[in-house]
């Protein structure tokens, strides 16, 4: 029967194939469904797209930087309030090892908090999606934990856990947890009901269905939630440091503020933002690696937020 089939199908393929698709289109590159795919080489078009995505924000940043430099050099505001870029740079180089040590502390707190929030958030999302009873029990608590102003409970956490790592991590988890739960629930619920029916007729157990169907389906949603969560985790760690700490960028910020050391304060702010941006980029890259098949990713450049 196979040879007969091959004869018949030869005629069919020509009619029924998307016009532009060659037989082996590869997933990452110039797929016809990518929309604005160009006939350029892959590396070339990638660079081009990256430049295209970056020139506008770069221009705006340059303008802001120039404005800052100009205002500071001319001392429209006193330098103890608005330092010049040169002064910030000088502080950065002089206090490099001090700043790096504190950056490391904040980064460490943030990453631990983020990873815990991701695991706990996903676990909670799974409970909510798989059990009606647990959904009713857990959702109100999750919501309650979210609406409590985290800054207000920071002092309490410091009183409970001391000035070490724990209260910062707890705050980072509390603040980053919610977007993970919400995106996880939305993602896990987005599975095609027909696929779940199909899975049942394949005799697959809940774990196999989760692993092979539900979880991969949830990934695009989940990754969006993780991107929000990672930036929030930085906020959590820094807030924790504000309230009680002996190290970390939040602590340095308070010290710089107390000493009217605007250059240190600016250097510190710059490093805080850098932590957020780098971690965000890491999650973006993870997303590009995990879900290259998703519509939002096809033909995209990893670092462009598109």
């Amino acid at each position, binding site marked *: *029967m*196979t040879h*007969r*089939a*091959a004869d*018949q*199908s*030869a005629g*069919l*393929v020509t*009619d*029924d*194939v*998307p016009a532009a*698709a060659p*037989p*082996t*289109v*590869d*997933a990452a590159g110039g*797929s*016809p*469904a990518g929309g604005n795919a160009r006939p350029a080489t892959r590396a070339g078009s990638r660079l081009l797209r990256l430049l295209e995505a970056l020139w506008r924000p770069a221009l705006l940043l340059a303008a802001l930087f120039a404005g800052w430099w100009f205002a500071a050099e001319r001392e429209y505001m006193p330098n103890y309030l608005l330092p010049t870029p040169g002064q910030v740079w000088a502080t950065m180089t002089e206090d490099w090892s001090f700043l790096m040590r504190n950056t490391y502390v904040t980064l460490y707190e943030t990453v631990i908090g983020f990873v815990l929030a991701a695991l706990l958030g996903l676990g909670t999302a799974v409970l909510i999606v798989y059990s009606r009873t647990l959904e009713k029990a857990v959702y109100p608590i999750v919501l309650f934990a979210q609406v409590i102003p985290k800054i207000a409970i920071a002092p309490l956490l410091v009183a409970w856990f001391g000035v070490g790592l724990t209260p910062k991590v707890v705050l980072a988890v509390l603040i980053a947890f919610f977007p993970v739960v919400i995106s996880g629930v939305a993602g896990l619920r987005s599975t*095609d009901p*027909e*696929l779940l*029916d*199909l*899975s*049942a*007729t*394949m*005799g*697959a157990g809940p774990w*196999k*269905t989760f692993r*092979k*169907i539900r979880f*991969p389906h949830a990934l695009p949603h989940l990754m969006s939630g993780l991107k929000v969560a990672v930036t929030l985790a930085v906020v959590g760690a820094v807030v924790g440091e504000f309230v009680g700490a002996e190290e970390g960028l939040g602590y340095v910020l308070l010290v710089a503020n107390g000493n009217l050391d605007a250059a240190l304060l600016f250097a510190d702010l710059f490093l805080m933002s850098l932590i957020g941006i780098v971690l965000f980029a890491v999650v973006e890259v993870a997303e590009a690696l995990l*879900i290259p*098949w*998703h*519509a939002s990713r*096809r033909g995209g450049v990893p670092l462009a937020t598109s």
Partner: protein
Amino acid sequence: MSTATPTLTGAAVDLTDLTVRFQSKRSRTTAVTDVSLRVDPGEFVTIVGPSGCGKSTLLKIVAGLVAPTSGTVSLLGRPVRRPQQDIGFVFQRPALLEWRSVRRNILLQAEMRGLDRSVAARRADELIALTGLTGFEKALPHELSGGMQQRVALCRALLHQPPVLLMDEPFGALDALTREQLNTELNRIWRDTGTTVLLVTHSIAEAVFLGTRVEVMSPRPGRIVRTFPVDIPPERDYAQVMSDARFDRLATQIRRLLGAGANH
């Protein structure tokens, strides 16, 4: 590639006095009432009826995905109480996994069932050739046309050589030309595999072209109003069947029965 049928003498599918009601907070819908239907092994039964008459519900009942409010269901001689595994299911939408290639989508069936890998791989390659997907094994679903996606879904449903194939308007979302091609292919696959097929459609032409028997359903609450045996030989050529007088007669009768409400 013949399929093992546990009970050679019994019915492949047997529905008796089936009624299904759906109860939601605001309303109560009777989807189907008093449906009795027997499908013998090797038959290709098509069910045609207007939208919402309970066609999908019927297939889900056979698959054990929905429990009837009253009446009995049996598949291959055994009562249906939970999701059944001796079936292949094809839906109107291909329901493929976006992140898996054509081949890996087909092999999902084997992975979920824990079938032998090398046997499954060989079988998948056979089906890929059978449905004209050769050369597209590595393509992702979004790189395929609707017709090709549905071929992948069909391969997935046939991978484990199910004795019964359930199809819910499988070609309803395709253009007329692709639909005719797939009808022809399905007719060939059915003859080659000897699988029992229960196919739901709202296209009269499709129902008559494919079926050895056409069951016509009324609007909701759905019941089977009449059965038409199709006395055209099983090996069917699309152009020939379309110009066959027997086809015309049957199609006209069914169209009259369904009234002006149905399309095609």
